[in-house]
């Protein structure tokens, strides 16, 4: 993988790294909104990969990656809305969104 020209691999690495950083965030954040933010990063990582494939891969399904990415962004939007609604609902009842403290259900 040469540094130049920038090809598929570069973008794949970038996407993967973003995904993993987001993953780390999702695992280590204890604020529920923080987890949601990290999830966005993961989705973006996947999006980068999708779009990169769309550009570089030999495919009969033209632009499928980009279309997929559009849908992912749509889902992310809806997800954010719903997720925040739920988080606020939880906050309203418990006055906390620290996921460590939301463990009434266990065992």
């Amino acid at each position: 993988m040469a540094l130049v020209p920038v090809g598929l691999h570069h973008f794949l690495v970038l996407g993967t790294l973003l995904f993993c950083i987001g993953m780390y965030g999702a695992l280590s954040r204890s604020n529920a909104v923080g987890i949601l933010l990290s999830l966005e990063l993961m989705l973006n990582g996947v999006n980068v990969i999708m779009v990169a494939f769309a550009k570089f891969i030999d495919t009969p399904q033209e632009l499928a990656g980009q279309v997929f990415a559009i849908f992912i962004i749509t889902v992310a939007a809806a997800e954010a809305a719903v997720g925040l609604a739920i988080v606020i609902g939880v906050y309203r009842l418990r006055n906390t969104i620290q996921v460590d403290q939301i463990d009434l259900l266990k065992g």
Partner: protein
Amino acid sequence: MPCPYKRMNVDVWLLTPEILLAIWACVVLIVDLAMPSSASRRPLLALSLLGIAGAALASFALLGTNTTSFFGMLIIDNVSVFFKLLFLLAAALVVLASETFTEHGEFTAEFYGLILFCTAALMLMASTNELMSIYLSLETSSLSLALLASWSKRELRSGEAGLKFFVLSAVSSAVLLFGMALFYGVTGRTDLRAISQVLITSSSPAALLAMSMVIAGLGFKIAAVPFQMWTPDVYEGAPTPITAYLSVASKGAGFAVVIRIFEGALLGGAIQPVWMDLFVLLSLLTMTVGNLAALLQRNLKRMLAYSSIAHVGYMLMGLAAATTFGLSSVLFYLLVYAFTNIGAFAVVTVMARYVEGEDLEQYSGLARRAPVLSAILALCLLSLAGLPPLAGFFSKLYLFWAAAERGLYATVTWGVINSAISLYYYTRVIRQMYLAEPATDSPVSVGLAPAVSLAAAALGVLAIGIFASPFIEAARGAALVITR
């Protein structure tokens, strides 16, 4: 004027059930707006049922169809129709059983509407053959289920359940997406049929990683160990009708997708041995963890949650067989499982009005207070345990059978031992109901709607077992479409 979509290989009629359901959800919402706020919302229940019935009729009309549309993204065959009907059945029973839950709640119309929407999404999951549609319908259903799980807004546990379901579903679908991206990258396709043609010979690490990620992502949906962690918490916290719906419809949809991808697209491919072995491992792990964790569980809903995990383990065994018979037995199993689980949860729903929480203690001497109710719960539990001549025995039998035919003897043996162990915790509930003395003598009354739901479940548990032949034949016919 001819339909413009005809030209583009689009047959909207194939989507009638889903469209009908979505429209009907809107109708329910609109009717609710038109009703005076003080009026009883009970008519909405009937209205929702009407919509479900219409969708079921429309689905029936599709029976025997075997076609694809929407550029190959929509697939209508008997398996998809089977799943559609299964989800509609679950929706109907859950709506019926939820009368007790909704009678004091607000947003009744939205509750029903969301169930209808969600059912439509699940039905789409079962009949798409393309990664984007799968992802989108899966997300749709997940989002609506997360919302439904946190529906009891004053209930601490409900909100927590919703949050857990939401976060974990988002995490899982991110993983699933990564897997789909890799599939797309490896094959250049998002269409499952096309993917399968490419993968027939390839077993590159990328394909394997993609497959692993898809398993992980769908593992969440079907609650296979180790992706099951959310299950007991969410099942416990969610409103009971939603728990039933989760355990049957959502799980069923997960299986529908697993079947489409693994039993359809990846069948016969170069990576088949890998996922077959993985399924066996997951199956062993899942059934063991589910059963052992349920063993001493005192909360009935949690116990049923663990039990449902164990049942996923059994079904994975059927999928691991990767044969027509294996697939058909999984379909049959899902059908039986739907009846039994909904029956069990329906009892819990009805009982919610009379007891505090779901601790087994609360069910002491229920047989004295509500003989029919306890008998139905007992039947459902024994069926889950796989005791003949109940339906659960036959479904499990066919499953083990299929696995045995494939030579998975050790797995089957372990499964049988697991079934024996599982009897312990199911029996504990029966013991509590029949053997313990009731704390109070007040009788339990069951409304008409839950009664219908309970009766249907009981009938299913009793009859499907004894008259299993036609069901099994139908399942086999459906399965043939996929594995052919």
